[in-house]
Structure formats: C-alpha cells, structure tokens
C-alpha cells in the first residue's frame, strides 16, 4: 500500500477521561490508516473506545497524544475555523440516534450543512443548487415523497436515511458512521447497510463503528478494538467477493 493512498491516518493515539477521582484510559497508542475508497468497520465491545476513536478521527474531539492526519494534514495543527471547515466539507457524520433538528423538515435537514457554511448572500446565490442536490439525495435514499415531513413523522430507518443524506450533502471525502443501525430493526438496518455499501462502491470512503460482527462483515476491512488498542486488522474477503 502506497503512503499517498491514505486518506486518514492515526498514529499512536492516546485518549483518557477523568471519571471522578479515576483517570480512565480509553485509547492506548492506537494506530490506524484508512485508504481512499475503503469501507472500514471498527468493532469492539462496549467501552473499547470505538466511538471515541471515531470522534477523534472526525475532529469532534482531540486526542491527549498522537497525531491524526487527513490527506497528509495534521488535524492537531488546524485552527478552530479550519476544523469547522473540515467538519463541514471533508467529513460527514451519521449517528446512532440520527440527530436531526426537530424544527426543520427533511429537506432543510439535508441541506443544512450547505447552508451553515455560507452567508445569507452566499446562500441566496447557491440556494437552487443546494435544493437540487438535496432532492437528488432524497431520491437516491428513497425519500422523495418525504421532503416536507418533519423528523417526528418519519420511521427510524427513514430518519437514518435523512441523516445519511445530510452527511453526504457537501460531498465529503470521508463518511463516519457511529452504530448507524444500532437503533434499527434488522431489516431496516440492512437497508441502511445496503445504502452504505452502494455509496462505497461509488467511491465513498466510509469508517463505521459497530459492536455487531455480522454488520461489520458488510465492510471491506474489519478492525477489532480491544481495550483501547487494535487487536485484529483483517480484510473481509467475503465483502470483496
């Protein structure tokens, strides 16, 4: 594997939290590299540090030690404004509990990332493009009829598809999914995984966190996290075929 193929690389990541008088070490010198176009599943039991790792990779959190580089740029050297831009343009998050804004309808939730990165004038200029892009995503995700609905009017699977649409709005280079099927029944969860697979086949780099081995097997590579370190890092041949 060539060095240049890495879209994301984590070197010797350490992260600990204070819980009362205790210092809890979550990540203990973790190394990970993700190639462009890869679909990586991070598995591990509860408390193994999966979500913490995902948050650090997406610049939602900072490691105590270690370096995360995204396309050869060190995230720890970025200023707050650059990190905001990074989160807006380069990565898209999909959370277990969807995390949609209740006050906005489906369409507005989807084009929200495009709106937040622009001034009123800038938004007016690109509003048409953003709407078209949002409708395009809704059609891809099978939600064309739901554009004007509010999140509370949708099922869990539909909400998660809206969350995926929002994550993809700005065409990010990396999609980070934290237990995207964790709150869904198995049939609906499979539907979400189908979408992720389809996106990956279209070239989207995806890092997904899950505690379910069966779900992880839909990814191209499975990284097993145990006690803050990577225990296994294996290519999923079944997925390749």
């Amino acid at each position, binding site marked *: 594997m060539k060095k240049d193929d890495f879209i994301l690389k984590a070197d010797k990541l350490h992260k600990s939290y204070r819980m009362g008088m205790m210092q809890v070490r979550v990540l203990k010198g973790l190394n990970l590299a993700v190639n462009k176009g890869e679909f990586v599943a991070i598995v591990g039991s509860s408390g193994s540090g999966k979500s913490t790792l995902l948050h650090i990779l*997406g610049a*939602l959190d900072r490691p105590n030690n270690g370096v995360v580089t995204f396309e050869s740029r060190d995230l720890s050297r970025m200023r*707050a404004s650059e990190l905001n*831009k990074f989160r*807006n343009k380069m990565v898209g*998050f999909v959370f277990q509990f969807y995390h949609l*804004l209740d006050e906005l309808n489906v369409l507005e939730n989807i084009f*929200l990332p495009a709106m*937040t990165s622009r001034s009123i004038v800038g938004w007016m200029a690109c509003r048409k493009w953003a709407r078209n892009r949002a409708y395009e995503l809704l059609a891809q995700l099978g939600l064309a009829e739901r554009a004007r609905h509010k999140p509370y009017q949708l099922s869990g699977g539909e909400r998660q598809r809206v969350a995926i649409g*929002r994550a993809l709005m700005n065409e990010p280079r990396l999609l980070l999914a934290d237990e995207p099927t964790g709150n869904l029944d198995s049939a609906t969860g499979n539907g979400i995984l189908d979408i992720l697979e389809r996106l990956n086949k279209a070239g989207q780099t995806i890092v997904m966190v899950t505690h379910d081995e069966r779900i992880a097997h839909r990814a191209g590579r499975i990284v097993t996290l145990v006690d803050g370190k990577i225990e296994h890092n294996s290519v999923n041949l079944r997925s390749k075929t």
Partner: protein
Amino acid sequence: MYKLILAIRYLLKRRIAYFAVLAVALCVFIVVVVMTVMIGLVSSFKQKNHDFVGDCVVGTKSLVGFPHYEEFMEILESEDFAAGVSPVIKSYALMNRQGSEPVGVEILGLDPLRHHQATGFGRTLRYHGDNVAKAFEPLQEPNLPGCILGSDVLLQWDTRGYSVHCFPLTAKGALAQLGTDVANTKMFYYSDSSHSGIPKVDGMLVYLPFDVTQKLCMDGAVKRASAIHIKFASEVRLKDGCGKVASLWQSFKQEKVDANQAYLLETVRVESWKEYRRESIAPMENEQIEMTVMFCFVAVVVVFIIFVVFHMVINHKSKDIGILKSIGVSSLNVIGLFSGFAFLVGLAGSSIGLLSGLFFLARMNRIEDWLFKHFQWQLFDRTIYAIGDIPNQAKPKVLVIVFLLAIIVCLLGAIVPSWQAAKQKPVETLQVNQI
C-alpha cells in the same frame, strides 16, 4: 440564513419562548403607559408654571419689594428681546365675607393687560378671557373695585363683596402702622376666577389691581414692586434672554448704587421660570426620576427572566448545538443563533407591548370615564391632580427608546446562556447517555 430560520422556528415552536415574549410585552406595556402618563403630567405641570410666571422674573422673595422698578421696566421695554413686561406685588392678607371669619390668602397685585402680555394670565380667567383689560370689573357692577379669586380659594361667592385686610410694610420691613390701624382694609367685589391648573396657586391666590395693592401693602414715598415678569420675543432662547436681563440688571444696579433705598436692590434675583418655580417643579421631576429608576429595576427583572428562559431552552437544545457543531458550525455562530433568538423575543415582545400600550393609552380616558360613571373610581383624583384628561400623548422619542431598550435587555439576558451554549462540546452533547 440557518440562524434566522432556526431562531424563528425556536420562537414559534417553543412554548417557553411565548412566556418570554409575554414578559417583555408586559414590561414594555407598563413602561410605555406609565412613562407617557408621567411625562404628560410633568410637562403639563411645567407648562402651567411657565404660563403662570412668563419666561423670566426679576424679583425678590422679601415682602418689602424693591424700588425703581419702573425705570428698569423702561429699560426692558426698550429692548427687542422683551415682548411683555409686568410688575407685580406679592403679599399676604386676611379676607372675609360680611359676617364670616377671615381666611388667610396670598395676594398678587397686577395690571391685568400687562400681565397677560407677559404671562398666560388671560387664559386662566373664567369670564374675562377675551377682554383681559377689564378683568377687575365685576360683571354686575363694573364701577366697583374687583378682585379675581383663585378657582379653589375657600371663599363662598358673595355679591356683597369681601373685606381685604393688608399689613403695610416700610422699606425697612417693619409694620408701617401700629395699634388698631395696623391693617389697611378695603372692600373688593368678585369680578372673575382664575384657574391656572397649579393647585397651590388656585387654592391660595387672590388677584387685586396693582396700584391698589401697592397702596395697601407698601408704605413710603418710593414706589416698590415684588417682581417684574418678562416674556421674551418668540425667537429668543430662554437662556439667552435671561442672560441679557441679568446683564441689564447688573448695570442698572450699579447705576442706582447711590439711589434712595438702593440696598433693597441687593435682594433681587434674575431667574428663568424654571428656577423661579423650582420648588414646585423639582418634586415632580424627582418623582419622574424615581419612576425611571424603578423601570431600570423592571429591566433587570426582564434580563433575569430572559436569562432563565434561555437557560432552559439551551439546556433543552444541547443536542441541536452538538449537531450544528458536528457539521462545522463555529462557537461564535452558536452565540449568533441564540442572540438572534433573543433579538426575535425582544422584537416580538416590544412590538406587542408597544402596540397594546398605545391601544390602551388611546382608550385610557374613556376607560376612566366608564369606571367613574359606574364605580366613582378615578385613576387620578381631580381634587389633587389639576388635570382634565389623563395625558395620553406618547412621545415618539420615548417609544423608540423603550422599544430599543427592551431588545437590548433581551440580548443582555441571553449573553450568558448563549456563551454557555457555545462552550458545549459536541462529543458530550451527542453522547448516547445524554439522549
């Protein structure tokens, strides 16, 4: 754009925001109504005092008065800035109807026409408003000596006339007459009533002809007056006019340094109407200041209400803050979002409060009339407050200030909660156990 959309949605969808809007609206309503009435009362009271006094007064508090006033009046009348000049004599007297006990009154000796030219005297008269020169001519018997009673002087109307007992003073301030002749007494007949709208004046003052009052109250060869009331030409500013009069008076005093009774000129002061009536106006102005201070406390209460409401909203919306930050919204923009929300709360509350305040003010007198008709209840007791209608003309400047202040107060109340929102870390707010 998203900040505006979200702020509007938060305002419309969150019931707690309605309470914040209501709190702001109520406070704005109270401030607009009370300030309008208060400012109206104070400015009306000031106007009445201005009308009573004229623009400037050259006078002494001493009952002895001061001499050579006629010469100074000639100087004033030769100046372009003086539109009217009127000498007056102020003193005290006992007054009674035939066969009744005397009552103490304050007397003001004046030339009605001159005084009307220098003050708003003519407008206060009940019968002679159109013919002020004849104000001291009783309607029934014009040849009899007339007197004008303050509208609230405690004397019953009597066609048989009133005995006025004055106590003449020498230039040194001693009683001019002793023994049984200590008082000069003269009969006067009711010619008119004066309603200045100033309770103290209308309840105590009796107006008599200048020359007669001078003879009754001031003994001596040199004629004296208590004060000269001056009205300035319309284009003359009060401060400039008073300055010119003061300068003329200084020169006049220097000129008269060796004149007869010149020592009495030392007690004379040149004052604007505001200074001259300070004792009456100051308490009302103080009340207005106290009211304004009280409204500052109201503003503090609004800040606190907004703070509490926003604290609750932000606690409830921590998930939204996490979501926004996860898609790249900066802390500054989170502050902007909640400040925008506070601005909308202020805007809505101020608008509602202002409109309802104006609506109420427009109908306040009708409401008071209805209450008085059905329950004999008045907001302002007319025996204490010399007003007709309750002042309800809101000043645009005050409305604009109240409107803007309410919005600023809302923004102030939202500063700390917005800052707390901006400080929230998305990792903490989006944690599964936080949901």
